[in-house]
């Protein structure tokens, strides 16, 4: 007998207050899903008519988690309009700051948000590693949870040093950066990064980064896990053991198509390796078949979003953001637009970066099992291993080349259009900007969570995590941790908005049932 869950609303802890995931469950398996962003933000309209440089101050305040990321995209859009390439030292400082923000986000998300669910006693009381999971991840008392907060806080001092202001720095400007750090400050950054790396290797990886990078296949990974107790007891080792026993490698598939805008423009002279002028390659992948990225293929579909409808999906340079929530009841269900690449639904984030960069371990994992929760979250947890080495190189290059330029003069912003396309912690982030008479006439932002958490498009194709939810087994409809794992493996970030102190504050809702 088919059993269908009806109209049960369940709090999804640690989801955003403006994210609603609604699913249909039949015989204990998710058969349909809808992802709804419930807050209109409207930054694009807010930017129109402002001074050309205002994006540098306003967009970092779009998000409290990715403040520097928005600053980076904003300044790259302006760089593109001016046509002036920042000097190498400015590249190094900008990249360092963005890497710090990415790393702190990665380890906080993995341990404080994703692995915190492993300490959910209602769901995992019978898991063989349950007790240890509570010791590690219980909020406020978990050993790993506290360590991650302390270490990420210490690492963020690098941004305060580089940016000269904390929080909300706007140290990136067209043509470079606003200040030249003293040698002592650069040395301080090196000490902080080295200390963080020591902790990351000991606690998160359980081995030196060089050893981790030798892992090139599922088989290697299995061998690494068996090799040493320090590997098994590290956060990566524990994650693998817990997640496999919880079958997190068996669901949460998603579209199996990936997008990365590429990241970290390389200085002209540097020892850091990359592709096409960037450390991380830009690209599109269908499974593990990677092809080049064409920015003209990015469009936004509005067919299921609460916006004034246009005739066809539009490129962000010509896209509109006119809220219109009336009519078509039920068909429109989100304030998030539906970004598409060449008309297709794609996933973005650390897993996409690993595949498009040709990381042999993740390519093998996708070939062996396809995408799933485990591989997606693992990519996030180990991404810092790929960032810490270049960070050390760039800090040393700054020490050796501090007498060189940090800024190329930009006196005016000419008329024109430019895009800042980068990888945020959660994936592809784009700012598309048009300037006339030194005023902003057009601004469009597509965030990673818009790619991953989009609603359906005109063809009816589900967004990435809507698709990933299909087939998810739900053991207890009153405690749907499995659906939470799927959505959280994408690291949803939709708000960073209303956070005022409220007695008995509300939670995000996962709605399960037939009624949208």
């Amino acid at each position, binding site marked *: 007998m088919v059993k269908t869950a009806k109209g049960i609303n369940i709090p999804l802890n640690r989801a955003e207050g403006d994210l609603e995931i609604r699913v249909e469950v039949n015989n204990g398996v998710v058969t349909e899903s809808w992802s709804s962003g419930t807050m209109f933000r409207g*930054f694009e309209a807010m930017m129109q008519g402002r001074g050309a440089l205002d994006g540098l101050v306003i967009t970092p305040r779009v998000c*409290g988690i990715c403040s520097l990321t928005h600053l980076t995209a904003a300044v790259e859009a302006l760089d593109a309009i001016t046509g002036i390439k920042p000097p190498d030292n400015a590249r190094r400082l900008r990249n360092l700051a963005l890497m710090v923000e990415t790393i702190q986000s990665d380890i906080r998300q993995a341990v404080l948000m994703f692995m915190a669910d492993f300490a959910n006693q209602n769901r995992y009381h019978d898991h063989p590693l349950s007790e240890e999971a509570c010791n590690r991840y219980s909020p406020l008392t978990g050993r790993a949870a506290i360590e991650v907060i302390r270490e990420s806080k210490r690492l*963020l001092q690098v941004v305060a040093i580089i940016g000269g202001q904390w*929080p909300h720095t706007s140290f990136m400007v067209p043509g470079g950066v606003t200040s030249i750090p003293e040698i002592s400050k650069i040395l301080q950054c090196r000490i902080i990064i080295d200390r963080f790396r020591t902790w990351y290797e000991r606690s998160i990886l359980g081995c030196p980064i060089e050893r981790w990078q030798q892992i090139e296949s599922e088989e290697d990974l299995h061998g690494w896990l068996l090799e040493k107790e320090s590997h098994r007891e590290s956060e990566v080792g524990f994650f693998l053991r817990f997640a496999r026993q919880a079958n997190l490698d068996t669901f949460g598939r998603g579209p199996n198509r990936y997008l990365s805008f590429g990241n970290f423009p390389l200085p002209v002279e540097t020892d850091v390796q990359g592709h096409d002028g960037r450390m991380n390659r830009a690209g599109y992948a269908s499974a593990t078949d990677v092809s080049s990225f064409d920015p003209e293929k990015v469009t936004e579909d509005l067919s299921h979003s609460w916006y004034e409808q246009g005739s066809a999906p539009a490129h962000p340079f010509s896209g509109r953001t006119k809220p219109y929530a009336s009519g078509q009841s039920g068909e429109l269900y989100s304030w998030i637009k539906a970004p598409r690449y060449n008309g297709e639904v794609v996933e973005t984030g650390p897993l996409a970066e690993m595949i498009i960069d040709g990381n042999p371990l993740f390519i093998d994992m996708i070939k062996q099992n396809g995408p799933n929760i485990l591989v997606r979250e693992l990519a996030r947890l180990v991404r810092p291993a790929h960032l810490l080495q270049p960070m050390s190189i760039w800090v040393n290059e700054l020490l050796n080349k501090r007498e060189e330029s940090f800024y190329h003069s930009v006196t005016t912003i000419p008329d024109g259009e430019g895009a800042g396309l980068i990888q945020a912690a959660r994936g592809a982030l784009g700012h598309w900007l048009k300037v006339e008479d030194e005023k902003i006439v057009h601004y469009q932002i597509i965030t990673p969570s818009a790619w991953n958490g989009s609603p359906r498009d005109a063809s009816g194709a589900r967004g990435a995590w809507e698709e990933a939810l299909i087939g998810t087994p739900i053991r207890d409809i009153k405690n749907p941790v499995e659906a939470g794992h799927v959505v959280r493996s994408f690291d949803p970030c939709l708000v*960073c908005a209303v*956070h*005022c*102190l*409220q*007695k008995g504050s509300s939670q995000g809702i996962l709605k399960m049932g037939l009624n949208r």
Partner: protein
Amino acid sequence: MKASIICIGNRFVAGDEAGLLVFDRLQNRPEIPEGITVIEGGLAGLNLLSLLETGGRVVFVDAVKGFKGSSGVVIVEHEEILGSTSQLHFDHGAGLPYLLAVLPRVCDGELPEEIMLVGLEGECTSEMIEHAADISLTVAAHGLKGLT
């Protein structure tokens, strides 16, 4: 005692911008008393931890809900902030209670001697923002004793 006034909130969301309106008002004051630092905390959340490791008195300014029956300014003490929610876990909107709950566990320096919140409830009139700015400076300089 040195003091920090940390104004938090989102100036792009109606109802959540109160703390930053107070920040703007304080910025326009001709003089902030010596020893008091005014900081735009914005949405930094957990990233404010580094500002709470140098002892002294810390006064947060933020919008609040459910603390007063009507619009107005309210002082919320440290313990009441911690007790205002049972949701003491991290998320992208992790708020003040989480920040203060985790602080003693991760502090690398000196914990603040006093922590309090100047809360703005309801619609923020210009008078209310001015009042909150005055109160913030008073409690930053003298603690709660300054209000008696």
